């Protein structure tokens, strides 16, 4: 790949060679010739920020934008995020008798998705329930992934007693029947409708499977030569686990993140529907429950009451799945390298042909 040969090297470096100073160098304090090379290259702060921007913002976004799944998923999730943040400011809370009872959707733009039997605007109900749902999703999904990855990663890497203890705890949580536990805890604990706590509560037993899967992956990865090399360099254990090993598992972790998020949505809706979770405001699940008790499933004129919250649930779920599936490309170094301006720009064309372009066909 390079034009240099050993002869060139030898002749180049003769002047820099230092005499053997034998015993003096017993530790790593003094370092010889190649380190004395003065670089003509100063990296400025601006360069560094440009590279950081390139690696963490530009490349991921440009990768995502090449994939239709990601575009759709990203758009859906962004829409829900907007609905959860800006939405409540624009749309007033639903109040009783703001319109006629059971108005059909798309009839009147004052209540575009129709109303329920008490004349409350369904669109407003959906929008105003979104912030609370998003908080639940965030806390639940992050809790699952963080606990699962940490426990699984450490158990797999450390082995021995740490593994035995952590794996036993994991097994206990896997074997607890999750739904009844959540029901009992929801009734016992004074959660008072705090969405962050509810999110964690819904996921309290769901991290076990992820931890087990991560552990088995780490068990194979820890045998890899590059991990052994990191150990030989003396990199501390947490850094090895989180900087060297976990990046390999990110596609898997992200899929689990979105799955955990969907699980929170479904469980929350189910528990609100069953009336187990305490609530203060109307909510997708509560709306479903009200529609059911009002017999919406057999009254055609009330059917939209049922459908509107369901569509809200299904769409965010689809959005999350598509986004999760497409994100694994972001974590693939081959794909990343192709999308970065700085890497590409400095690559000489000859070299690129030999090593890099074999993956271009993949797009």
């Amino acid at each position, binding site marked *: *790949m*390079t*034009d*240099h*040969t*050993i002869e*060139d*090297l*030898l002749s*180049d*470096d003769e002047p820099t*060679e230092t005499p*053997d100073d*034998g015993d003096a*160098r*017993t*530790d*790593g304090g003094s*370092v*010889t*010739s*190649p*380190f004395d*090379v003065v*670089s003509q*290259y*100063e*990296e400025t702060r601006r360069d*560094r920020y440009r590279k950081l921007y390139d690696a963490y913002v530009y490349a991921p976004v440009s990768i995502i934008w090449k994939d239709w799944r990601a575009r759709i998923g990203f758009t859906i999730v962004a829409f829900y995020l907007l609905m959860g943040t800006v939405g409540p400011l624009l749309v007033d809370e639903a109040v009783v008798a703001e319109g006629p009872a059971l108005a059909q959707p798309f009839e009147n733009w004052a209540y575009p998705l129709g109303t329920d039997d008490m004349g409350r605007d369904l669109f407003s109900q959906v929008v105003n329930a979104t912030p609370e749902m998003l908080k639940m999703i965030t806390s639940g999904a992050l809790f699952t992934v963080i606990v699962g990855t940490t426990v699984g990663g450490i158990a797999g890497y450390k082995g021995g007693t740490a593994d035995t203890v952590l794996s036993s705890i994991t097994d206990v949580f896997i074997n607890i029947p999750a739904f009844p536990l959540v029901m009992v805890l929801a009734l016992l604990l004074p959660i008072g409708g705090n969405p962050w706590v509810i999110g964690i509560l819904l996921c309290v037993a769901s991290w076990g499977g992820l931890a087990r899967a991560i552990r088995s992956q780490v068990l194979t990865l820890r045998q890899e*030569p*590059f991990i*052994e*090399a*990191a150990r*030989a*360099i*003396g*990199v501390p254990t947490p850094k090895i686990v989180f900087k*060297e090993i976990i*990046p*390999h598992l990110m596609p898997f972790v992200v899929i689990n993140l979105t799955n955990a998020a969907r699980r929170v949505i479904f469980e929350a809706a189910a528990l609100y529907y069953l009336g187990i979770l305490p609530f203060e405001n109307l909510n997708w699940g509560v709306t479903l429950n009200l529609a059911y008790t009002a017999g919406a499933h057999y009254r055609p004129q009330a059917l939209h009451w049922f459908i509107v919250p369901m569509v809200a649930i299904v769409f965010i779920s689809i959005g999350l799945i598509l986004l999760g599936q497409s994100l694994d490309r972001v*974590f693939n*170094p*081959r794909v*990343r*390298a192709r999308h970065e301006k700085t*890497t590409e720009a*400095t*690559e*000489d064309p000859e*070299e690129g*042909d*030999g*090593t*890099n*372009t*074999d*993956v*271009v*066909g993949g797009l």
Partner: protein
Amino acid sequence: MTISQTDYESSSAKGETIMEIRNASVSFDMERGDSRVLDSVDLDVHRNEVLGVVGESGSGKSMLASALLDAIVDPGVLTGDVTYYPKNETPVDVLDLDKQELKEFRWEQVSMVFQGAMSSFNPVRKISTHFIETLNAHDYNVEEGMERAQQLLRDLYLDPERVLDAYPHELSGGMKQRALIALSLILEPEVLVMDEPTAALDLLMQRSIISLLQQIQERYDLTIVFITHDLPLIADLTDRIAVMYAFEVAELGPTEEMLERPAHPYTRLLLKSTPNLESPIDEMQPVEGSAPDPVNVPTGCSFHPRCPLADDTCKMNDPEAYNVDATHHVHCHHWEESADAIPMTESSTSVESPTDRIDRPTTRATRRSGDQPLVSLDDVEVHFEKEKGFFDFFSDPETVKAVDGISLDIYEQDAVVLVGESGCGKTTLGKAAVGLQRPTGGSINYRGEDIWDVHDSGGSGTLDWGEIRRSLQIVHQDPGSSLNPHRRVKTSLEEPLKRWHDDLDGNDRKQRILGLLDHVGMSPPEDYFERYPHQLSGGEQQRVAIIRAMLMNPDLILADEPVSALDVSLRVEMMDLMIQLQEMFDTSYLFISHDLSNARYIAEKTGGRIGVVYLGELVEIGPPEQILHNPQHPYTQALRWATPELELAAGMGDDQTGGSPIRNIDIPDPTNPPSGCHYHTRCPEAREVCKTDSPASYQASDAESHRAACFRTLEDHEYWNSDSIVDEEESFDG
């Protein structure tokens, strides 16, 4: 690249042609362009010959093998003609056969042995099932077929009852490979195509299989096409050799011609770059540059970017076949000048005596044996306990003695090369020496302190664990997996500096790394700095891995087969680089190699020692001249025999030309090693006393550092009065 038909007709007059390839091309349609992985190849295979096809990885040699059977995988497209000439029958156009005919043609006429015997057998079925299925699928009589199978297995020195009744995992790699050869011969094919059949095996096993192939070929009147990257390996076996470069045949000729008077510059350079035991090490030169990409093959002669003889003609015109003589063809415009331009220095067939080498220092290890060793291994044992099943609860656990009592001193600026078969414990020993594997017995001392004592006590003495960790580094075998694929070259190389030189800021770190990258020939370094490992070639990845170890400024580096994953033409270059870095950084090396020629290259260039490991024991250690030319232990002699020579058996001593110096091809089960001297089951010199007594390490010759663990080095040992246990009947090859 077209050849007039007459050329080949004249050449094939000598031997009858059995397969004929004309203008065969294979192309893969890729989005970045048409990838030609076989480019207008013309080749004749003669009846009952052994044709060697040699090329570096990615030269299209496996595609040639697949083309012979019309077995190119989708979406590859094969064009051209492949004709098969059965005895006394009409020729068959292989590419025109329909599915049923093709099925009969493959295996019954032409069969193939693949590279990975490990994955060629279904792990949940017995070996016999594979034979029966093959026979059934081709409507052969199973009983007759199985009798033939037993005979074949016996011919390959396998116990038919045992092998047929075994599951694949119960056989060693070499046994599986031999069973696979038997399976490929079960339908009595005329032609056997072997695609790197020995690449995954040990030297000794490779060599044994090669000599078995010679016998098999004669006995069954086979035509063999042997594809390999290892030219010396097949020098004895083949009748003709074809050298492939960049998806074309570069040169074709009789083996003797090819080795002694190669005409293509590439062949000459390849021969020169191949490490071997005989030619002086200063003559070994790497081939500069690297093989071309299949999408972007250079115009004209594909070798011209790397060729010292290239001129404008080579850039414009693809050379046709020039006839050196009736049987020797070369695709080079300047073949007549190549001999003068690239001298091969006829290496003398007589063994160079050690005293001739005045330019080389006497071994440094000898020179400073009085000094305190840098790392000293004292009776180190590493035993692995096999996991016990639930029902084995009360039985004793099975232990594998990976390292069984080895003592070794490594001095500053020393180089020790460990050689041995796979599974003999050399890697485990190496990892124990650099503190990555805790020994179960004995001690490892770094500058006089037991490293595991320091580790446990948290560094109460003059040394702490971090200091030891920094001083002992490792370079792995496979460069592809020794760098984290998710981290850039930059991040990987900054890691050691961040850890051990936290006084440096980002720019200083970068300067140092750039300086080193440039130094090892990766320029422009700013470019490589930002790359991911997959954007580097294998050689470049290995350089980065070496730099990473060097940035720690270590005292000892364990290099675990650092060149065996690289192409032959790159190996010498990489070893030169490592030796040069050693001088610069004042490190010591513990090299691990399964290849005696690489070991010799390193040891001679650095004035180090070669240690031979067998079943967890260090059986012989000494300076390379002694190990190679005066081996005392019978196992070292066997390794010496197994190392292929380029000079057509001329380099071997008289006692070795006859056949293998081992009695038993297969290595004993390491969970249950033989009593006494572990080697007595395979040793041609073994006597009764070897069964019971285990030899210690004795002074083996005048060289101070030369020691061997064999009774034969002692003049007055009871060994000489003991009865020989060698039974001529059981001897493999006897």
